[in-house]
């Protein structure tokens, strides 16, 4: 069974890794967007990461010291060796597209839909990329930092429904 350090080393040897870091025993591996699917496949097949815990995203707009706009977070877990690994992919406008991981882990389906819904990142070859939390008619992606905090859909002067017109 390979340790996390050995796994990271093996990934670095193949030249897929942009950067790695460790914080309180959790290891983070940054890969390029186009290398995400091969690296994820290798982690699943070769190193036994059989579970995708979470897919989420961070918007680094105006974040001190950040160079990229969006950072995707993939949280992987191996039920055999009880190891965890975090994959990071950084994306910039206008190229907000990355390969879907649904072919590897079914659990990616709804989580990628959520990221698409709230951040507007598109997943290539996703089987059903629709909004999941917000209504279909919603026109923007509200967890982006440039979404206005005020002034949308406030109650003032919206008509109240009476019994007669229900």
């Amino acid at each position, binding site marked *: 069974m390979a340790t996390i350090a050995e796994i990271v080393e093996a990934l670095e040897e193949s030249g897929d890794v942009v950067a790695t870091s460790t914080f309180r025993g959790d290891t983070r591996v940054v890969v390029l967007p186009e290398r995400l699917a091969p690296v994820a496949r290798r982690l699943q097949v070769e190193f036994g990461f059989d579970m995708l815990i979470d897919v989420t995203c961070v918007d680094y707009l105006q974040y001190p010291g950040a160079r990229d706009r969006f950072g995707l977070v993939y949280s992987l877990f191996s039920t055999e060796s009880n190891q965890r690994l975090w994959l990071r992919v950084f994306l910039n406008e206008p190229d907000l597209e990355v390969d879907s991981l649904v072919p590897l882990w079914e659990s990616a389906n709804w989580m990628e839909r959520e990221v698409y819904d709230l951040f507007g990142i598109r997943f290539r070859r996703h089987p059903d990329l629709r909004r999941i*939390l*917000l*209504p279909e008619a*919603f026109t923007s992606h*509200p967890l982006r930092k440039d*979404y206005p*905090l*005020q*002034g*949308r*859909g*406030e*109650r*003032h*002067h*919206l*008509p*109240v*429904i*009476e*019994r007669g*017109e*229900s």
Partner: protein
Amino acid sequence: MIQPQPWIEGRLPADSVITTTVEQAINWARQSSIWPMTFGLACCAIEMMSAGASRYDMDRFGAGAFRATPRQADLMIVAGTVTYKMASRVRRLYHMMPDPKFVIAMGACTVGGGPYFKWGYHVVKGVDLVVPVDVYVPGCPPRPEALLEGLMRIQDKIKAHRIGKTGDAAWFKPGEKVEDRLPLPHHTGHVAAPGPQQARTDHQKIKG
């Protein structure tokens, strides 16, 4: 041995007759068995469950039979945050309920957006923008007693219901029509606003 407590039996002679009006009888029957629909949307639903359980016991007022289908329910207690995605579902459930139907908006979220009043992109700012509301129960969340009070206001409303009539019956003047009318319940706390008011805090100011 416990003696049976006489209620109406002990007070009337055995062969007596009670007269009432159809309207009063119908209203009495309706108000004493309001069946709410089982659904909760957020934290307020916890208080609603508590109001239905043994300690507060909504069944005392005849409203304990929570129905799992809108087709059997008279009362919709909208307990919790209504999101835009849920709003169309709430409206469809309301239309599935048979008449006469009543709606309680329970909690600040359903009264006017609640904690999401200013900053929530996903919350309907009051369920009365989606379905007609009969009684508003404020609070975040309201105590079960407050929900019971709201239920009793619904009962007041049903009790004062004027059932619509047309002039077909022999005892009724031909051609005359009485409109169906549902009054405001008594001691609602409803007061007219004393004219236009100045916004005092930032969140009351209307911008854009």
